[in-house]
């Protein structure tokens, strides 16, 4: 049993590993690897202990708060929180991390900067675990930003590739755009409640007193403070979790090494947004009972989640890069989770988060295995025929696919997705999430079938695929473990045995009857079947022969396909709007700097002269020209005057004497008394 006051040990272990790794000399390649593995294993054990403790009393929010520093007379307090949600997530993060770490050892064996890689990974895990056990929105923000930093470093791990460097920057900047909302929400919350602690013996922001106050604070237009704060915090989640319209960074983030994609951009970090919304769910839901609120915070979450779920699935259909397909799939699945939170089923969201972490990590690692074997070829058009060459990877990939598309009854993804769809069906506000969810199911089945057929079936269509052979044990072992988890993780939350639901909410949840929701299950199963069948009919029946052949979808609907392949021009849209706006503002600033600030102040000087020297005025601003001119004039006058300084001492003296005499004469005869 780990008390809350000791929770800091969980993130501290990897942090220490990262610190030592950063300080270690570059030649010590193995040290950071061992340290990272040891630390993450320790954290895993501690997390399990913490989880056991948390499950013993699921409703009790065990906290350990402390003062970070004092500003003025007010303490800024942070804290650790032990509850089933955080502990369960920690276990999941640690477990996936252990597997990804092991996989990475083999995947990056040849890289000279292996040690640095593990240092960054340790930093990431430390920050992520800190985020999960934080009992303070401020501490959560701290870890949130550090997670972003680690993501930045790892996306740009191969920084001498310009595309990787650009992708890293894009990821950081776009998530930071969302973080501005997060920061403002935090500030607002701080101002309204005077605290950032979630639970603080009745004074925390997620406890009844603060929530009532927030919901009672009404702003113009019927908004409440709770709605405003909730929406602002959600903006942070939108950035981090790749939700529409800030989803554009996530596919680009695939420039990082594949284990990074598996761990950070599929299983854990991108889920942090969902975690955040789940964590502050009481706050998000505080305005639910108020009819005057124009848009409830959760409604916005549900709408954004629905759009993202659908958009991600649609875009995944036309991608040819293996990792990009999986990246858009991640966007789509994160949309499902948000959708679930939005319709009030945050438990279902967390359930899906955990199962998704297992099977998406599996899929990414599987693709990593393929890429590794095929000498870094990741275009599925130039792969093919790997089913026979990499049998183990193929089987585990199929299992992961089954979980993702939600093949019924056995696979984990089925149960978590059913839970979400069930909640969406019952949502009273709108049917949009439900419809979007069902459409997404078809599309998911379709694009995953397409991916499997293109990659593994048919004959090899490229150099890499021809010479591919099965990856080493160190890489297949994590695949096996994750494959088992992808299947089994769903059993903890089936309607028949809602263990997870009861533990997370801290209240017993009755098992549902088989008949309840059976219709929905059947319907979605049919939809999955339709998707798979369509995929098989287009891609599996006659596998692709030539890498350059047109996609069957492109033959049928060339315009639609082109639009999708261009990712619906989202990047171009941003470049043309936000990017241009920013560039314009910066150009305006430069112009103002050159002409106006200088000019306004320069008016007091010598405006007329600045126009004369156009060329110079372009380089210098008008003000400085004025100063230079004035000083030149002064200097010339001084030169004139200095001619009087002949250097003839006797001359000076003569002048003095004459002057003196004149003065005396004036005094004597002038009658001056």
């Amino acid at each position, binding site marked *: 049993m780990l008390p809350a006051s000791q929770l800091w040990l969980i993130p501290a272990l990897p942090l220490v590993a990262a610190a030592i790794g950063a300080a270690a000399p570059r030649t010590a390649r193995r040290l950071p690897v061992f340290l990272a593995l040891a630390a993450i294993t320790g954290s895993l054990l501690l997390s399990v202990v913490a989880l056991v403790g948390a499950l013993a009393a699921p409703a009790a929010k065990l906290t350990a708060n402390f003062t970070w520093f004092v500003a003025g007379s007010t303490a800024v307090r942070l804290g650790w929180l032990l509850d089933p949600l955080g502990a369960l997530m920690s276990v999941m993060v640690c477990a996936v991390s252990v597997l990804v770490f092991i996989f990475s050892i083999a995947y990056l064996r040849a890289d000279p900067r292996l040690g640095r890689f593990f240092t960054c990974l340790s930093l990431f895990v430390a920050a992520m675990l800190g985020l999960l056990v934080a009992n303070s929105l401020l501490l959560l923000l701290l870890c949130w930003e550090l997670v972003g930093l680690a993501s930045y470093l790892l996306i*740009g791990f191969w920084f001498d590739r310009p595309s990787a460097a650009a992708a890293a920057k894009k990821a950081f900047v776009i998530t930071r755009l969302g973080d501005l909302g997060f920061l403002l929400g935090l500030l607002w919350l701080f101002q309204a409640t005077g605290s950032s602690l979630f639970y603080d013996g009745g004074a925390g922001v997620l406890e009844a007193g603060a929530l009532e106050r927030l919901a009672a604070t009404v702003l113009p237009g019927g908004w409440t403070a709770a709605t405003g704060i909730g929406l602002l915090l959600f903006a942070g989640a939108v950035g981090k979790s790749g939700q529409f319209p800030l989803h554009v960074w996530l596919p680009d983030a695939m420039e990082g090494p594949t284990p990074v994609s598996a761990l950070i951009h599929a299983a854990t970090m991108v889920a942090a947004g969902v975690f955040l919304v789940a964590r502050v769910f009481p706050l998000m839901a505080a305005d639910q009972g108020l009819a005057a609120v124009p848009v409830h915070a959760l409604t916005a979450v549900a709408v954004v989640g629905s759009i993202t779920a659908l958009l991600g699935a649609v875009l995944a259909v036309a991608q040819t890069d293996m990792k990009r397909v999986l990246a858009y799939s991640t966007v789509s699945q994160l949309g499902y989770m948000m959708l679930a939170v939005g319709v009030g089923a945050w438990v279902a969201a967390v359930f899906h988060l955990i199962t998704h972490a297992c099977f998406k990590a599996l899929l990414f690692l599987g693709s990593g295995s393929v890429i590794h074997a095929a000498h870094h070829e990741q275009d599925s058009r130039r792969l093919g025929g790997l089913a026979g060459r990499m049998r183990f990877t193929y089987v585990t990939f199929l299992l992961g696919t089954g979980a993702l598309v939600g093949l019924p009854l056995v696979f984990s993804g089925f149960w978590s997705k059913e839970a979400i769809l069930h909640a969406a069906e019952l949502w009273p506000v709108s049917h949009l999430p439900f419809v979007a969810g069902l459409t997404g199911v078809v599309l998911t089945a379709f694009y995953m079938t397409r991916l499997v057929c293109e990659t593994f079936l048919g004959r090899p269509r490229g150099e890499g695929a021809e010479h591919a052979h099965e990856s080493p044990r160190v890489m297949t072992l994590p695949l096996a473990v994750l494959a088992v988890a992808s299947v089994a993780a769903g059993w903890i939350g089936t309607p028949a045995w809602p263990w997870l639901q009861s533990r997370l909410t801290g209240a017993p949840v009755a098992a549902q009857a088989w008949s309840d929701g059976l219709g929905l299950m059947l319907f979605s199963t049919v939809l999955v079947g339709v998707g798979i069948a369509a995929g098989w009919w287009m891609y599996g029946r006659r596998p692709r022969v030539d890498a350059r052949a047109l996609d069957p979808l492109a033959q049928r609907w060339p315009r639609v396909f082109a639009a999708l392949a261009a990712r619906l021009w989202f990047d171009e849209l941003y470049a043309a709007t936000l990017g241009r706006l920013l560039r314009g*503002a910066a150009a305006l600033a430069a112009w103002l700097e050159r002409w106006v600030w200088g000019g306004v102040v320069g008016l007091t000087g010598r405006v007329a002269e600045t126009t004369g020297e156009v060329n110079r005025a372009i380089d210098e601003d008008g003000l400085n020209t004025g100063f230079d001119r004035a000083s030149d004039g002064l200097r010339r006058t001084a030169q004139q005057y200095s001619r009087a300084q002949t250097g003839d001492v006797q001359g000076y003296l003569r002048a003095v004497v004459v002057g003196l005499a004149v003065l005396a004469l004036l005094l004597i005869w002038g009658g001056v008394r």
Partner: protein
Amino acid sequence: MNASMLLTGLVAVPWLGALLLGIGGSLPARAARALAVLASASTLVFGVLLLARFDPALPGLFVEQRVPWIRSLGIDYHLGLDGMGLLFVLLTGVLGPLALVTTLRRATRVRAAGAWFLLLQGSALGVFVALDFFPWFICWELSLVPAFFLIRGWGGANAGAASYRFVVFTLAGSAGLLLAFAALYAATGTMNFTDLARLRAAGELAGHLGALGAWATALAFLGVLVGLGVKAPLFPFHSWMPATYAEAPAGVSMFLTGVMSKMGVYGFFRLLWPIFPEELRAHAGPLLVMALGGVVFGALAALRSGNLRHMLAYSSLNHVSYCLLALFAVAGAGPADGVAVEAALAGALLQAFNHGLSAAALFFVAGILEQRSGGNSDFARFGGVRNAAPRFALLAGVALFSSLGLPGLNGFVGEFLIFRGVFALQPVVAAVATVALLVTAIFLLSFWQRVFHGPRAGAVAGEFADLDAAEWRVLGSLVFLMILLGVAPQLLAGLINPLATSWAASLTLP
């Protein structure tokens, strides 16, 4: 050693060092360098000794020395320190030796450079400890002279024009300051900051000034505002800054942005606010807009510039403007939410310190890049530095992210507290200012991507050495402080909390 000797020694030892260097004609360069560094590092020693005397329970001056100086004019030799002054003294103590080492490392005419620099450092310290306008203004003006010669004698190709511009701008500002205090002196017969603040608190200052003429108060306020605003700089009085920071030698730029710009910020808190609180409140709206303009405009201009030094100069404008933003928001709000006011004030002072550290580190980075590439810091000349010099890249990266406000590093705490306070007092202003956070991230990361990432190119393509031992010590100690103060901000916050609390309680300086 008693306390008043500490104060005098704090200022005198660097000056003494400058004097020794100035007359020590036959001193070999090594000895001169060692002497300069010792004299410069004395500030840190004095700072720590003073820190040991700091009393957290006391909001006012914990060390004070006041003896009559020029009796006929009522001028006192009045030195004193409170937590705020100590904060800036410590900043000078940290940055002074590092900037000096950087300046002297590759300088010709070591003796002269060291002497000028020590004179500069002593003057800056004098500004932070003097409490009578007369000695204060002497130090304030005296700091210009060494800065001018350092920029001119050891600076870049256009250093002549830049130093000239720097001095003329600052002198123009100082003239306003001098006139304003002349008016105050004529009205009240004293130029002592504490006495003036006391008069103001008692409500008598307005009457005295009013006797001079209807506009006297407004003009005096304006004079002080412009004088301090040019130094800080307050947007739009910043036009001297980019060229100056770009042309000054790297070490001097470190000191200029790290310490000298803080003289302006310090002046806002020590002079303007306590003596003219009502004028400040009356004009808080436009001033707030100006500070906000500095925040946003600085960030945008930095985004636009393709030269590292210019970018850092505008970035400095952006960061220093946060401090002023907090002050103006507080001044404009009047007695409002006490917690927010405290947060804003504490944040402004912390930000001043932290910006000093990170900006100095970034100017040091710029200096290294220039030195390695032959004296030019345009982005286009670099690429892949991280590949060529990984240790340099690591430390430079920490400094960069500190400037960007990453939590866990020092830059975050001040900015967070400022936003915390300003949001409560002026939510719209805070919301607009957050945009600058985004722009800051964009331009810093663009710089990083262009210069450090990608394949090795330009000046980096050939020989490009990693940090040597001396450079590592300078940058490493700065980075160490960034991490330390990021994790444990209480170390600094403890110094200024009593002040922030008492200010918030009275909204005037004691």
